[in-house]
């Protein structure tokens, strides 16, 4: 085995730039996933059969098919249908955002359901109406259940983000492949970006743990 990292040195800035590209679209995707996920979760905890149905079908579709398929459909099929080219970035944030929303909505729903039913009854018995009950009593407690799982979802999304390389988006992964093709050596660039992914996930994990600790202070 002969590893030679000297050859990738000129490409390092090119690969490092990929960090921001990856983080940028992961961040936007998380944001979309979070907002849409919250809306879907709110649908799921209503009493309306229609809203619950919509949210459940949505979740079932996005969790029940491969993410790479969803990405391909958005990137290749939508332009074919509409004649309008939406580009790699928009395709990527749509696929990841919409997909993540399905998981996020389930995480939030489960987190809310896990709050002791007695809390709702205590609030109801005091005459507290739905909105303040959710805002001041249920959600603050649900957040403690939700946050660790949500952090996991973001970590998964960060790692899975590498599949946008398949639609030619110039993320970390794609850049490693380009460098590999350029210098006829794949191991070094792959190892290099692998380390970067690991560091990103490590930092995310630490941030999550810190947030959790802050939340647990009232316990």
């Amino acid at each position, binding site marked *: 085995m002969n590893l030679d990292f000297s050859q990738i040195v000129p490409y390092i800035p090119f690969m490092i730039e990929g960090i921001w590209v990856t983080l940028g679209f992961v961040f936007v995707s998380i944001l979309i996933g979070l907002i849409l996920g919250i809306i879907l979760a709110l649908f799921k905890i209503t009493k309306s059969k229609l809203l619950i149905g919509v949210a459940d079908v949505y979740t079932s579709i996005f969790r029940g098919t491969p993410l790479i398929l969803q990405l391909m459909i958005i990137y290749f099929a939508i332009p074919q249908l509409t004649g309008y080219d939406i580009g790699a970035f928009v395709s990527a944030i749509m696929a990841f955002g919409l997909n993540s929303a399905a998981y996020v909505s389930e995480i939030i729903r489960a987190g809310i359901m896990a709050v*002791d039913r*007695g809390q709702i009854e*205590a609030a109801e*018995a*005091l*005459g*507290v109406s739905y909105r303040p009950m959710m805002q001041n009593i249920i959600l603050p*407690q649900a957040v403690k259940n939700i946050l660790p799982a949500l952090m996991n979802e973001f970590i998964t999304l960060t790692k899975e983000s590498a599949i946008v390389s398949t639609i030619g988006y110039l993320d970390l992964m794609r850049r490693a492949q380009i460098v590999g093709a350029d210098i006829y050596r794949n191991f070094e660039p792959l190892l290099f970006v692998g380390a970067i992914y690991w560091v990103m996930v490590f930092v995310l994990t630490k941030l999550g743990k810190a947030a959790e600790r802050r939340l647990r202070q009232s*316990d």
Partner: protein
Amino acid sequence: MIKAVNITKDFGANTVLKDISTTINHGEVVAIIGPSGSGKSTFLRCLNLLEEPTSGNIFINDKKITDKKIDKLAIRKNIGMVFQHFHLFPHMTVLENVAYAPQKVKKLSKTEAESIANKLLDKVGLTDKVAAYPNRLSGGQKQRVAIARALAMEPEIMLFDEPTSALDPEMVKEVLDVMKDLVDTGMTMVIVTHEMNFAKEVADKVLFLADGVLVEEGRPQEFFNHPKTERAQDFLAKVL
């Protein structure tokens, strides 16, 4: 005044309350007793609409609260409830627990609500715990906070669902004492309890439920000393 007329409650195919009618007068203290699963909690929870009766009606001060169009929250403002397992808000301090509903429901200012809360916490003997979180309290202390929380809404009626059943024996008295103080203020109280001595001592009336049926209803003296039905005699023989 609370008036229940022919209350029936089904959970699916299971009928847990069967045609219960009774009247609870203003200022009366009523103890509901009976074997486990007889429907005591369900009946109590019908009174503040945490459960909706399948049929029958409940009137509070002649207002039909089982009306479909009734504003449940408005009714509940006037009826405090204390649960077996306290259900304090764990992310709020003791003071916040008690001052929360007056602010959100009655729209009192924080200062006003906290002043009411402080007074009540003083009454239940917890002035030194106002800043503590519920998980730092003993069961008896938690239940006293829960009572103060319900009283902060200045309800006309208080409902208690086995308020001492989840407590260690040495903490039962402190909670019963707080309840006795409340009896002395003339509060209308409906108490589901297994504390027979307490019922004997403070209740004006005892309701005995078995299998969803209101089997006997009467003054504690009569009921405990001369139960009329065999069902009540059996039950008392077991618990006394």
